[in-house]
């Protein structure tokens, strides 16, 4: 046990101390987040109430729900391709169906986000 001297205890103290100080710092800042978020939520609620509209729509639409492609759609596509190519539907696999425009979001997509899309649109 003679190995555990002052320096070891200093390491432990500074170590646990820094961990706690840093995470307590983060905690306080995140509490600030909470307060701001709460205030914004209340404001929104009031805005909605003052407009006399039922607050039914979710504040923020989920990102990935945009696709909206049902199995019926897939079936329709498969049938269309099958008819047009004269192959049986089971020979056709549709790799992916995705909506072509992510709204304004895409306006600033860089080169390698866009080039592809345009090219695909053309083929």
């Amino acid at each position, binding site marked *: 046990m003679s190995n555990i001297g*002052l*320096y070891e*205890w*200093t390491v432990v*103290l*500074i170590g646990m101390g*820094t961990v706690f100080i840093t995470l307590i710092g983060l905690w306080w800042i995140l509490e600030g987040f909470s307060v701001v978020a709460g205030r914004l939520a209340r404001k929104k609620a009031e805005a909605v109430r003052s407009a006399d509209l039922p607050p039914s729509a979710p504040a923020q639409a989920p990102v990935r729900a945009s696709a909206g492609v049902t199995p019926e759609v897939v079936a329709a596509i498969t049938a269309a391709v099958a008819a047009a190519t004269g192959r049986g539907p089971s020979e056709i696999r549709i790799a992916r169906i995705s909506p072509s425009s992510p709204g304004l*979001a895409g*306006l*600033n*997509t*860089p*080169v*390698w*986000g*866009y*080039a*592809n899309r*345009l*090219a695909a649109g*053309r*083929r």
Partner: protein
Amino acid sequence: MLDSILEFIQSTGFVAMKWTDLIMITVSCVLLYLGIVKKFEPLLLVPIAFGMLLANIPLGGIMDPAKDGQPGGLLYYLYYGIKFGIYPPLIFMGVGAMTDFGPLIANPKSLLLGAAAQLGIFVAFLLARALGFDLQGAASIGIIGGADGPTAIFLTSKLKPELLPAIAIAAYSYMALVPIIQPPIMNALTTKKERMVVMDQLREVSKAEKIIFPIMVTILCGLLLPAAVPLLGALMLGNLFRECGVTERLNNTAQNALINILTIFLGTAVGATASADKFLTVQTLSIVGLGLLAFAFGTAGGVLLGKLMYMLSGGKINPLIGSAGVSAVPMAARVSQVVGQKANPSNFLLMHAMGPNVAGVIGSAIAAGVLLSMLG
């Protein structure tokens, strides 16, 4: 024990921080804002800004070189891929794999517009010289007008690495701002009658043409300008993977996993070169200004040659597609489309503008080759 604690406190970033560090951190946050909220080329700007943030945390050491047998920082190692000119060509390979040269092959006159729009590079080069930049610095600033990230980073890393972050940030930011920069210039230089021109539909391009094209470009441009081989060759190899139909695996990886990995490495390493002493200078402001002029003159060059072609063709060519020659694929082509449709709602210029647009990529790679070969 108190000594150790005091010493430890001395080693925190708060104590070591200079006011320039604080400014750099703030600049990083502004760039993150531009990338994330304003969506300025986020795929590059987010890594660049974060690399800048990490490198400017005092004592963080993420960009420290190896010395005395101690290994260096993470971004110091990742930076080797830029220093040795490895990332930009490989990223360009991915760009090639994503690019369809069909509209260019269908309408090869587009190439002239892609050439004319390189005017901005050389105007900015002259202006930068006038402002006192040395030849290498001026060439690196000029290449911002090429509107091509990998090309700009490749050339700057060879000629003037200390300007790398400013030039990369300017290039990507202006590429994102093309929809704001170009329309006024396009409107000022053209008449409504010119903007209303509807162009003939493009011919079909065969598979064989699309396969021969990248090989031919590599040989021809390579022989004319050997210095353009790394960039153009990689671009064309990627395009060959795309078009040849028998290397789908490689095409897919070149335009996904590989380009994404290298984009992360390149972006963070470029950002990490932005130390306060190199970045917080009047030069950076000059670069921002000159970059804007480079884009503007490139746009003007393309539109003016477009006007000439309009006249020579008897009004069959819409000069608006000339502005797409600056590259900034495909934003500049979209701008041509939008401005054209405002003048004539039944006008669909997008595909016609894609020709000059991809020609501009080749054009600025060639311009970079010339600058590298004369000033490197």
